[in-house]
């Protein structure tokens, strides 16, 4: 890097905070609410300082009732506000499932098109931080099952910074899943980074021998694996899905048509997962392009263990991704 002041050194957490500030400044209908988002500065310190800057009207601490404050967010959105509801982690979102699935996702339909719900719900997802079986879920694939909502999984600083505003502009409910292990991820972000589109997957690394399809918390491990096999002469393409609903089928098929092999890396449980859906779409659309069965790495189908070594063993890691790639791609002289 030349050291020009075109980028700044920042973290995923700070990028989200910058996105929240930007949204709160741009549009006075925007407000943030959730457990401990105000005085405490957010359970993951994302909203630190925002209460002082924007005041208690727009940075609202809520009671410990996910059903209540998600429901309130839906009501506010119907009433013309642009609420950002923070649910601490995805496991707590289960308490608000009725609000999300039965109300947010259906009211436009049930009201005959009268009421759309421009609501954004943010939550933390994923394992890897020794938070044990009740706080380590990766349920974004579940939510991607539901028509009527969009599901985003920012895995980069650019997306952490840019997805929120685009989500707020969307007329329908959007869920943003922030992987807990990414908050401290550091990197360079353009000073003028701003909103990004949320309909397309992104090719994060170009390659010709195998497609690695992933999103969220496993993007880093996947890029690391691609880097490692490059030394062996295997050229891996890495696709970051970014949005799990709607899935960008065109990009998925495009990469498979290019490389003819695919490994899907998904921190969710294997059975009935988003990885299964991706495999199905590849089979439906690109069967005759496949030179090997599509492979996938998912989390072990167990409640997430607490001990560090067991937790590490339960979720996809770079060496396993490397092994899966080698299995699929056998180079001939």
């Amino acid at each position, binding site marked *: 890097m030349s050291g020009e002041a075109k980028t700044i050194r920042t973290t995923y957490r700070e990028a989200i905070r910058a996105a929240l500030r930007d949204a709160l400044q741009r549009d006075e209908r925007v407000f943030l609410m959730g457990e401990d988002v105000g005085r405490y500065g957010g359970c993951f310190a994302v909203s630190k300082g925002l209460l002082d800057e924007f005041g208690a009207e727009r940075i609202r601490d809520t009671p410990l009732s996910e059903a209540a404050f998600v429901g309130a967010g839906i009501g506010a959105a119907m009433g013309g506000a642009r609420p950002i509801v923070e649910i601490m982690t995805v496991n707590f979102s289960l308490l608000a499932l009725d609000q999300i699935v039965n109300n947010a996702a259906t009211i436009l339909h049930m009201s005959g098109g009268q009421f759309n719900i421009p609501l954004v719900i943010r939550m933390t997802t994923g394992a890897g931080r020794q938070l044990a079986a009740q706080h380590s879920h990766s349920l974004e694939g579940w939510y991607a099952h539901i028509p009527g909502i969009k599901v985003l999984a920012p895995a980069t600083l650019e997306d952490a910074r840019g997805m929120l505003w685009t989500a707020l502009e969307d007329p329908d409910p959007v869920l943003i899943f922030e992987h807990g292990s990414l908050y401290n991820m550091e990197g360079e972000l353009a000073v003028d980074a701003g909103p990004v589109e949320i309909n397309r997957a992104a090719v994060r690394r170009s390659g010709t021998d195998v497609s690695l399809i992933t999103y969220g918390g496993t993007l880093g491990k996947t890029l690391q694996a691609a880097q490692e096999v490059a030394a062996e002469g295997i050229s891996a393409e890495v696709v970051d899905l970014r949005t799990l609903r709607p899935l960008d089928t065109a990009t998925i098929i495009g990469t498979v048509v290019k490389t*003819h092999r695919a490994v899907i890396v998904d921190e969710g449980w294997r059975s009935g997962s988003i990885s299964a859906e991706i495999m199905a779409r590849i089979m439906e659309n690109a*069967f*005759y*392009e*496949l*030179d*090997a*069965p599509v492979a996938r790495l998912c989390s072990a189908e167990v409640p997430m263990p607490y001990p560090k070594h067991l937790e590490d063993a339960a979720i996809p890691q770079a060496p396993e991704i490397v092994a899966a790639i080698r*299995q*699929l791609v*056998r180079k*001939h002289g």
Partner: protein
Amino acid sequence: MAEFRMPSLGADMQAGTLIEWRVRPGDAVKRGAIVAVVDTEKATIEIEIFENGVVEAIHVREGEKVPVGTVLATIRGEGEAARSPAPAVPAVESPARVSPLARRRAEELGVDLATVTGTGERGAITRDDVERSAARVTRPAQPEKPSEDRQAGLRRVIAAAMARSKREIPHYYLGIDIDMSRAMAWLAAENLKRSVTDRLLYSVLLLRAVALAVHEVPEMNGFWVDGAFQPSAAVHVGLAISLRQGGLVAPAIHDIDKKRLDELMREMLDLVKRARAGVLRSSELSDPTITVTNLGEQGVQTVFGVIYPPQVALVGFGKVAERPWAGGGMIGARPVISASLSADHRVSDGHRGGRFLAAIDRLLQEPEKL
């Protein structure tokens, strides 16, 4: 359960090499369908099946050479239940593990997957395997220049058949000159009405005349088998076709007595083309009931033919040429062809042979009825 055996594609055939299966176990087959390709020493022959049913099992692998009569496959008849335990003999080893892309590429590149070694997971054939195989094997074009082996083989086969014929068959020969002026005039008028591609050659008139004459003298049509004549109800005329590289084959045009001239013309052209490309069907080689050979193109006036056993007759034609023709006290020039009959004296006598040639002559005087 029917057995599909290596057919005899001529009296001289001892064995054949199964080149290619066109069906797999479980495939439904219909009477007349081409199910396999067999290489004899004469040609590569497409083999037809004579039952309707389902291929139960295949017993001979591609590339294997087996004697005539060997069971190649078993066919389950329509309505017959599948044999409950799996067939004892394994089917042709087909590469079960082929990636969809590899399969597609193999089709595009014309690579036979049976020849490709898989290097993928558990021996699966991948695209790379197919492409490397395609690069290695530059497939020879259809045998434009057959190898010395094939040439020698073909000569050996002809030698065996002709020696047997002359050793066993007491030939007698009759000849007749036929006035072709009516036939040629009718043909010229007929061809004026037709587009260039639909025009008829006089050979088809000769074939029709022979086939219809057989109805009048059935002793000319059939086989001498085990010391007795077996007449044939169907008339399948074997047409002697010389091959470019030397040698000849005489495959059948089926049921000539029932076919229209147009149809016959098309089939004749197709047969000549396929015979010279070396792609004939089994029934064409095994079915002829009488042979016609036409050497007019070479300027031959009269043919003294050798019967192709186990058939019992061969009709030879020479060149259609203008010759002095006497009639009504006058001499005029007419197009004339010399027809000859070589017949098996065990089956017929000169008297019947004479009637046969006379019938051909008479039929050719009424070309519009052919």
